[in-house]
């Protein structure tokens, strides 16, 4: 069914009887061409593009719980393509372009809102690094804008310009960056995939892989064995847990990242602001809540909750940047599990097992990557070759020494 303003009016006048399920709840079939493990944003997007753009059929998405219940349902909703390195920037720029047309593509209003993202600069060395980054963005066809303190003051007069421990010396802005209504991304892709015949199987947990002489034949699940031509793991956050069932060790650790939302407030913060002298970034949802976060807790964890030290660290930085926040109330804190990779960049690649593919290692940047990740993973599954903007996301880059280390932190996942 097609959504539109007219449709809303018609239904309103007829008691909303006509709305149909956004996606079906079919029974699993015995065999699919493609089985995608993980009903999160990336998995659902992969299924959608596989069906819509690559015309593939017999596709299933297996979700152990309810779709969109992982990181796509627990993040700070930011989209941007302000990356430095060649291995990353083209990929994220393609993602941003896909976001820009997503709602029309899906006929679903995910509230893609390009109100801009600003990374603040507090030192000369930081400026040099951001200039290099901004230039890299432009050279890759993205937009970047170096803002002066005056320009920032005009836009965000409520930042601490007068009494800051680390004065604001400028900022790198990407005006095409912004936020998206995160749950709606999962639902929109689910609805789109479903309408192209993809089976979305909720409460269907993968308990094992069936591998026969080096070839993956399918998966054992809580709803029985499901055969597959190609099995595509897409469970960032739980990658370690899942791939262990295929006896794979990964260059990934699972860490908890907390995020926070305040009580609803009348509009104060137009875009996304990122503090450069501490761990804090913030935006405001259309509903009015300030959505903010900071650093990961820093220890391996599969528990979707964090602890006080990071909560305090984030709010200290928030108060240092926006002293007016003192009287806003923090409403809710939650934790998501991040696939923290060894260089801070993701992996979209075939595994050593025939027919088994892997997509993960998104660290805490997975949400903004959703469309491109889906497109590139679908490309790899459909053609057997990596998409041209995702050629660097290989397993073997660590063995061969081609790390994609934006932060330059080295092989320590909790520092990325």
């Amino acid at each position: 069914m097609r959504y539109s303003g007219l449709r809303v009016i018609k239904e309103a006048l007829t008691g909303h009887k006509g709305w149909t399920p956004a996606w079906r709840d079919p029974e699993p079939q015995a065999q699919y061409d493609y089985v995608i493990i993980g009903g999160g944003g990336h998995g659902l997007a992969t299924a959608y593009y596989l069906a819509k753009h690559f015309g593939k059929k017999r596709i299933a998405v297996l979700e152990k719980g309810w779709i969109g219940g992982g990181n796509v349902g627990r993040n700070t909703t930011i989209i941007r393509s302000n990356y430095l390195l060649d291995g990353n920037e083209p990929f994220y720029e393609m993602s941003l372009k896909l976001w820009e047309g997503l709602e029309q593509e899906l006929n679903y209003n995910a509230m893609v809102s390009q109100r801009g993202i600003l990374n603040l600069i507090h030192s000369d060395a930081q400026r040099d690094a951001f200039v290099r980054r901004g230039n890299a963005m432009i050279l890759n066809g993205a937009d970047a804008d170096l803002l002066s303190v005056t320009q920032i003051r005009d836009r965000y007069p409520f930042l601490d310009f007068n009494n800051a421990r680390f004065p604001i010396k400028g900022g790198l802005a990407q005006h095409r960056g912004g936020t998206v209504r995160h749950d709606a991304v999962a639902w929109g892709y689910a609805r789109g995939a479903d309408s192209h015949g993809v089976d979305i199987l909720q409460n269907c947990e993968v308990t094992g892989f069936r591998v026969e002489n080096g070839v993956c034949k399918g998966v054992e699940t809580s709803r029985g064995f499901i055969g597959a031509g190609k099995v595509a793991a897409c469970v960032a956050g739980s990658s370690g847990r899942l791939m262990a069932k295929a006896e794979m060790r990964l260059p990934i650790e699972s860490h908890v990242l907390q995020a926070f939302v305040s009580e609803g407030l009348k509009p104060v913060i137009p875009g996304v602001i990122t503090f450069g002298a501490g761990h804090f970034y913030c935006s405001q949802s259309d509903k009015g809540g300030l959505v903010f976060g900071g650093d990961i807790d820093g220890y391996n964890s599969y528990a979707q909750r964090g602890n006080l030290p990071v909560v305090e660290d984030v709010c200290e930085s928030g108060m240092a940047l926006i002293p007016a926040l003192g009287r806003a109330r923090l409403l809710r804190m939650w934790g998501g599990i991040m696939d923290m990779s060894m260089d801070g960049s993701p992996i979209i690649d075939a595994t050593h097992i025939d027919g088994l593919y892997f997509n993960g290692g998104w660290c805490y940047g997975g949400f903004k990557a959703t469309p491109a990740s889906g497109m590139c993973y679908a490309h790899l599954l459909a053609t057997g070759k990596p998409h041209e903007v995702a050629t660097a996301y290989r397993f073997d880059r660590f063995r061969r020494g081609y790390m994609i280390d934006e932060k330059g932190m080295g092989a320590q996942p909790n520092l990325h």
Partner: protein
Amino acid sequence: MIQVNRLDGGQINTGRTLDFTFDGKRYQGYPGDTLASALLANGVRLMGRSFKYHRPRGVLTSGSEEPNALVELRSGARQEPNTRATTAELFDGLEANSQNRWPLLKFDAMAINDRFSNFLTAGFYYKTFMWPAAFWEKLYEPIIRKAAGLGSLSLQEDPDQYDKGFLHCDLLIVGAGPSGLAAALTAGRAGARVILADEDFAFGGRLNAETFAIGDDSGPDWVATTLAELQSLTNVRCMTRTTVIGAFDHGIQGAVERVSDHLPTPAPDKPRQILWRIYARRTLLCAGAIERPIAFENNDRPGIMLAGAMRAYVNRWAATPAQKVAIFTNNDDGHRTAVDLMSKGVTVAAVIDTRTDAPRVADCELLSGAQVVDTSGRLGLSFVKLRLADGSERTIECGALGVSGGWNPNVHLTCHQRGRPVWNEAIAAFVPGGDLPTGQSVAGAARGEFSTHAALRTGSKEAAAALRDIGIKARAIALPKAEDAPVNLQPFWYVGEGKGRAWLDQQNDVTVKDVKLAHQENFRSVEHLKRYTTLGMATDQGKTSNMGGLAIMAELAGKSIPEVGTTIFRPPYTPVAMGAFGGRSRGKHFHPVRETPSHKWAVEQGAVFVEVGNWLRAQWFPRPGETTWRESVDREVRAVRGSVGVCDVSTLGKIDVQGTDAADFLNKVYSNGFAKLAIGRTRYGLMLREDGIAMDDGTTARLAEDHFVMTTTTANAVNVYRHMEFVRQCLWPDLDVQLISTTEAWAQYAVAGPSARKLLQKIVDPEFDMSNEGFPFMACGEITVCGGLRARLFRISFSGELAYEIAVPTRYGDALIRRIMQAGEEFGVVPYGTEALGVMRIEKGHAAGNELNGTTTALNLGMGRMVSKKKDSIGSTLSEREGLNTDDALALVGVLPRNKTQKVTAGGHLMSLGTPVDAAHDQGYVTSAAYSPILNSSIGIGFLRSGGNRMGETLRLVSPLTDSDIEVEVVSAHFVDPEGDRLRA
């Protein structure tokens, strides 16, 4: 001004009146009032508007679970949006305003939404506003954003201060109702360290809201006696206005104490609130229960509230929402409200009980098997329409309706570590599951023990049990006689009939219809329901609304309520001011400041300072007449290269490395060799990470066979020390080596320039040979200065000049810089700051932070040969990976503008001439740039593909971000004195 709905009695001090205003109108109340009770006493039922439909709303509850009565408390910089009138303590001069309405609370233009509610059902926005795409940011979203949100933030700096603190106890008791107080008596008398915390400003919990007797005392009297005993015990800390907000790992609890929120402004130097981190060996949750409403058509009018809340207003605050009320209940507890109100002279029109066998408790009309099917009254309740047991309809006039659908144990904190509550059929509610947070147990109503007697009994018993766990003997208290009525309830969630809307989540305007629509569209998982309808996502997190939603979803799905399950309870229990989490780390005190030994002197010199990490360093020293920073910096550079200058370099990390295996140890952490370093000599060392990337560099001096002093970069001092302890303790535990940081212990100055020796000869005591032969380049030694002060001297150079670094104990740093300036006067010595330091190191092509950026290798830095293959050192093996050794690997080079008037931009990218300017043709980038007053040109260093073989080549340096595009020549990074004659002079 008379308080029309004020009754007799209550726990308020009528001896003193407090003036306050709501929406500009003046009212009076009494100490002990909340804003809500005072407004009710003044006959005000309308206190707010709902989020979406802007429906008129009054209080639903009498506590922190309130969804409706949210106000902007105070004004100006202290304005607090979304403050619950039900918990805001009244103080003289209190100023409150209603929010999310325009222009007035009584006449809210946005209430137009209510007319269009049919179009604004759950999730409607996902289905429209998509065309044309550009309109979203430009038109639709701005309108939506403006309409959304609740209260507003002043955006002025919060003038109040917040503290953080840490408490330790054997037993933390959360909630000071009957169970909490009984627990505190039990644990307190046993001598345990006890913290008793309650979010209310008065201890007692429901005992303050009920008319129950405890033994021969009234509830409040028993509370007073109990409190008196507890306060006499030094091992018990009683904390009112303290909300335990979260149960974190291993028994650590977060709590917020509202120290000053009940005052017009905090006292001088006192905090508004304190965030406590409580280390509790055991925690006993006595958080009571929260009443739940019943959904029926137009159940959201001001005057319609929970029956228990109505009772609380009458009993505790002597305020009734109206002179004539009715009660709607599905359980016995609702009838108590009728009894208590009547005893206070309030007319109870009827008790409407959904049960056909409702008991007759109150001496008023009882309508068994009846339901409320609709209500009327635009800004406040005036009539309720009933469907009687016999199917007939009837309308009752009343100004308020008390509703009781039963009570939900307050399980919030039991679920903070992802424990899930379990369903208890007897009370038709969720009770704590087995999987409680570390060290936590539960007593009283919080675990479904609803009678006062049971609360006292379980409170005392659980406290004793928790203490027994940690080896403290405690005896249960003798239980006073108390109310022990059983729970009598017939689950009833919503009234089926009627086409209108019946509210579940009153703040977010989620109705029964919305839940049904979500189900129809397959948003059936409880999490989908919540996210699609926003049920329970308001500031009250669904404390009064979630159960109703679950019940309806269960019915639609043909499942039981426990099968449907709950959403996840997450901290904080109630919203917390962000200031409390921030504490004192704000403004200039966000992070501690590190001052250099010469700070005081530099301030006297009028130095300009810059933040380098937490350090404050002199950036340059302006002289009278100098109008731009460049003038000062150029002068400082010329002075150093021309004669001599002095710079405080104390910020560099210094690590004392001792032990018989110290040299072996350094051989492992540095990529180059240190075993053969002679005593009295210094060597440059390059440290790699295990992945082969450069980690840090610096010079290390050998003071004795078994004693080295390592220097690290300012930025990496802490990481390098940690890394070295890792190598020492975890990789080679049998090496005899001891480490300790001495960064702060020494004031160290670089004295650089052709006259450096002559100057220092006047400082260093004469018995030490300063000649080039006696103390050559890279020499070091322990010496004395200024007549016997112990000091260290290193002949090392960052500037490329004849240079020394001289160190004395920090307390003498101020004296030494003054002495050096004095002694250097004849040579025209100047102090120089980090800018001049930076210029000179770029002129010499020395790598610093911008080059050691975490992605560069020794090869990139032009030090490939330094990585010894003859020994094992951290990073040596993986530094040989193919990707780090490609033929076109980046190499450090210098760049000079072809046109000397042009500026080299750090962060610019290098492109070959004639190739397209895009990422695909990127040749490298400039890391650092400066103006060299020696070369009279802007210069830069950076990394270039195959840089080593491209000397003399002309490239484009492009920086589209800063609109710069110039031609540069590739040169050696050593712009000045490449042979190094000067530093050996």
